[in-house]
């Protein structure tokens, strides 16, 4: 029977054998005019179908329980109820990632926003002093102005030391703020493993359910679900491998200019 396995994938070989025997018996009975016999064969056939169906539903139910146990969301005992399910644990973990990355981004931006004006002031004062210095070198400076410059350079050099210290400290704090990557990376890997495990369990269930579908002769009409892009679909993964997605700003610019932008 393995030669036409594709036609009755999932059905028990004995069921298939019974189907085959009884269908030829049915044809014979009808051809020979024995209609009573034919009706009784049809009865037998539907009995075979019902029994297999019950068996498959039983298997499906067991698999479902198994899967639910694997997901640890079966709240049968108080102990299990107390323990966090893997699912809600996964959401908590991802919420933690969002929180950690948000914190790191804000901490980094705080430090950058604190450092930028310092760098700006340093640059402005250095450039102003440089101009004055050039005037001094060209001997265009009056003694009173020189005394003023003398003090200004002194103050600048002192400020330069404290400001560079501050910039250095901010930079090393920015460096430290990136330590979230280690923690979030571990968390995401754990959640990815859970998603994979769930996918496998669900796939097992789908296969089980398809056996029931075959016995009942159910054909599902699954509408292709078109993802509406109107509300936004978020960042595209593997953009380079896809035709319908731009791979960067240059692509966007090309597309827009082809539209007459």
């Amino acid at each position, binding site marked *: 029977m393995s030669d036409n396995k594709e036609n009755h994938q999932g059905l028990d070989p004995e069921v298939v054998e019974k189907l085959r025997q009884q269908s030829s018996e049915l044809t014979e009975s009808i051809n020979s005019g024995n209609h009573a016999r034919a009706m009784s064969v049809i009865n037998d056939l539907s009995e075979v179908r019902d029994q297999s169906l019950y068996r498959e539903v039983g298997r499906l139910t067991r698999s479902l329980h198994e899967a639910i146990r694997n997901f640890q969301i079966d709240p049968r005992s108080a102990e299990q109820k107390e323990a966090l399910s893997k699912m809600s644990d996964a959401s908590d973990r991802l919420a933690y990632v969002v929180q950690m990355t948000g914190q790191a981004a804000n901490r980094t931006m705080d430090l950058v926003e604190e450092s930028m004006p310092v760098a700006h002031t340093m640059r402005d004062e250095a450039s102003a002093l440089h101009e004055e210095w050039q005037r001094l070198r060209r001997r265009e400076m009056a003694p009173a102005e020189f005394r003023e410059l003398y003090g200004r350079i002194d103050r600048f050099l002192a400020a330069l030391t404290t400001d560079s210290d501050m910039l250095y400290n901010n930079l090393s704090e920015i460096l430290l703020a990136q330590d979230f990557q280690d923690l979030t990376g571990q968390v995401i890997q754990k959640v990815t493993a859970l998603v994979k495990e769930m996918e496998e369990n669900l796939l097992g269930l789908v296969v089980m359910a398809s056996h029931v579908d075959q016995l009942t002769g159910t054909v599902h009409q699954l509408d292709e679900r078109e993802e509406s*892009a109107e509300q936004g679909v978020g960042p595209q993964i593997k953009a380079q491998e896809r035709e319908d997605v731009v791979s960067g700003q240059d692509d*966007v610019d090309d597309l827009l200019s082809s539209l007459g932008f």
Partner: protein
Amino acid sequence: MKILIVDDFSTMRRIIKNLLRDLGFTNTDEADDGNTALPMLRSGKYDFLVTDWNMPGMSGFDLLKAVRADDNLKNLPVLMVTAEAKRDQIVAAAQAGVNGYVVKPFTAAVLKEKIEKIFERIQ
């Protein structure tokens, strides 16, 4: 020049706000989705709108359409800064009347170039 920045993530709003400040635009306000942004735009006399696409509540695309459908706002320049990268979406945004489209992740130079280009065209 008064600019409204619309993004559901405060970090992204902060990045854009900082980049705009570096470009000399210091008068900026923030909103976290289209539903908050639209009343602000209607009452606030903004000169420029920078918006994300994917946001809970009202999306940036719906905000763009609402702006273009509003007689008082229809000429407001709109720059989209978004992770949405499908060609269909970019075409749809262009057809809805967006003035510029920047995909995330982006650089300060790209943002600067697009903003300058939009202002060039207006002036």
